[in-house]
């Protein structure tokens, strides 16, 4: 939160999701200075866009609140948002990173009072809600946003709307002259925690994502269930706003498939099992979930959770990779395929189809600045050739939150080892 000067005893953490925040905080709470770089205007990453976690069904924002409080009270972490690392030069113990910082058009004087948002008329897609809804072009990224500061969408810069926003702000917080800049940050070690992105479901052509409105992805479904989401927490289907009570979950949408992602994304089975709970929660009387799967990968102690869902009469399991989805005359998506346990064909209409999309690294190995060794899916491997650039969380593997945090904690120690060595050499 302060502007400490980065040196080669500083740890640069790239990515402000749960892995990056963890790495930054764990290092800072061990007494190290950290620069935390986040691409979006607020920290929190993809987990902050989830409604609940498996297997506890608790809310990710609860952990985020704790992490933000840790951050607010810790002067050792310097947070840079709207920023992307474009280059890393140097070697272990002595790196210089180039960081491109996009203009926010709002400075530190912002009190998040919301006057600019009320003054602006333009609506833009809301990426926090995976563009399922829109928000004003002067906006607070989300209710938990840190920094708790508004952002102006570049689309309104140079328009009357921007002037309206500026005029509405009593605190001189809006600065329309901000420009993109590139800053250089020194660091002894780098933790690369840029996380994951959902596999582009439109590439799985037979499932009709992008053609049928009522075929959505698992991450979008999280937003539908969330009170902060576009429907205020109601599970309504996109085509007609009808309550979606009979929901199909299609597993391995992209994962375990040589035509798409070779690897298993690990989290999707548990995520769908969890999402059946949302259906039950919102429609206790007549909610119905069907999971189409190849293998249910409720790994280790998550088995409990699977057994509980199995015991729920509102959830059925069909061992089958769905062959295709069509749409009937009522706009219902229809799943076609074969239940391979005993060969039964099905043609089943649902209110909504949720594709359990796979996880791929947000920044693929080959696109990480510096020569980073990665596996064929683009996840960073632990390799001495990477020097003091350490992969953490889902940049290093398809991981659930718990394992991502564990990985980030380990990465923080590896980074500390490097800067401790630098400190010792300099002492």
């Amino acid at each position, binding site marked *: 939160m302060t502007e400490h000067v980065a040196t080669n005893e500083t740890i640069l953490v790239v990515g402000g999701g749960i892995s990056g925040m963890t790495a930054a905080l764990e290092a800072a709470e061990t007494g190290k200075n950290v620069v935390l770089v986040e691409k979006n205007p607020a920290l929190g990453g993809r987990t902050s866009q989830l409604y609940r976690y498996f297997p506890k069904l608790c809310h990710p924002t609860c952990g985020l609140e704790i992490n933000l409080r840790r951050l607010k009270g810790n002067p050792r972490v310097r947070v840079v948002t709207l920023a992307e690392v474009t280059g890393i030069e140097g070697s272990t113990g002595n790196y210089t990173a180039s960081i491109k910082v996009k203009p926010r058009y709002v400075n530190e004087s912002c009190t998040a009072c919301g006057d600019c948002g009320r003054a602006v008329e333009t609506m833009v897609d809301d990426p926090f809600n995976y563009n399922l809804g829109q928000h004003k072009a002067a906006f607070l990224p989300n209710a938990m946003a840190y920094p708790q500061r508004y952002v102006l969408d570049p689309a309104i810069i140079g328009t009357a709307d921007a002037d309206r926003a500026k005029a509405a702000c009593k605190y001189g917080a809006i600065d329309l002259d901000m420009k993109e800049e590139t800053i250089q940050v020194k660091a002894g070690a780098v933790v690369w925690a840029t996380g994951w992105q959902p596999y582009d479901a439109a590439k799985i052509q*037979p499932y009709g994502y992008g053609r049928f409105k009522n075929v959505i992805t698992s991450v979008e479904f999280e937003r539908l269930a969330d009170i902060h989401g576009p429907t205020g927490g109601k599970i309504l289907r996109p085509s007609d706003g009808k309550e979606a009570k009979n929901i199909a979950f299609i597993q391995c949408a992209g994962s*375990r498939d*040589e*035509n798409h992602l070779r690897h298993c994304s690990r989290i999707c089975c548990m995520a769908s099992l969890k999402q059946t709970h949302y259906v039950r929660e919102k429609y206790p009387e007549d909610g119905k979930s069907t999971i189409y799967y190849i293998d249910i990968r409720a790994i280790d102690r998550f088995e409990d959770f699977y057994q509980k869902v199995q015991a729920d009469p509102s959830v059925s399991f069909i*061992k089958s990779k769905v062959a295709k989805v069509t749409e009937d005359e009522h706009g219902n998506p229809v799943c*076609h395929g074969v239940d391979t346990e005993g*060969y039964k064909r099905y043609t089943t209409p649902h209110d909504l189809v949720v594709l359990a999309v796979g996880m791929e690294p947000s920044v693929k190995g080959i696109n990480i600045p510096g020569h980073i060794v990665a596996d064929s899916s683009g996840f960073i491997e632990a390799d001495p050739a990477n020097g003091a650039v350490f992969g953490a969380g889902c940049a290093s593997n398809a991981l659930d939150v718990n394992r991502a945090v564990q990985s980030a904690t380990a990465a923080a120690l590896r980074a500390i080892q490097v800067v401790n060595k630098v400190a010792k050499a300099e002492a």
Partner: protein
Amino acid sequence: MSANTALAEKYRNNFLKEIEEQVEMGDWVKMCMQCGVCSGSCPTNFQSAWEHPPQELFMMIRAGKREEVLTTTSMWNCTSCYNCIVRCPRKLPITHIMHGIAEYAHRIGKAPKMQATRFFSGLFWKNATKTGRVNELKLSMGLYFKDGFAQGVKNGMAMQSVALGLVKAGRLNVMELFGGHKCKDQKGIQAMLKKAYEIERSRKAAKMAG
């Protein structure tokens, strides 16, 4: 085969090995992970067409169900649309495996004799290789009368209007029934086919020898 040996072979790799050795692309069978997308994507997706869909056949092969696999009509239903190949997450060449199993079943005399596709294929091959040209009239008649004279007449009657239409349009010559047209070098065709059979035999022998 005694009951004991039958049991002993179940779920052992004997039949799988036989398929791997004898069937074109048969060594892909082991790669199936039973997701069922092949069975579901098949456009001939009516239960009756496929007594055992592809992924189930693969499991049956692994389970050593030799008789059931080789005598089923299932794989004969494949229309080579390649949907299954496109969709298979393990990239199994399912279409080719289906044809391979069918061909093998036929080769060792296990294939159901009167299965329509098999019958048609045989008819077509004979018809085409005899003169080097396909005699469509003979081919249709052969197929219509597959299940006996009475059924043949019935089939013919059912297609009457189509046939008349074709005759009118000059697309069907009734005289074809007596002889019909040939290619210019009928002997050359036969020699070519003979050579092809030889190559095929030596390739298979080589494969068997490992």
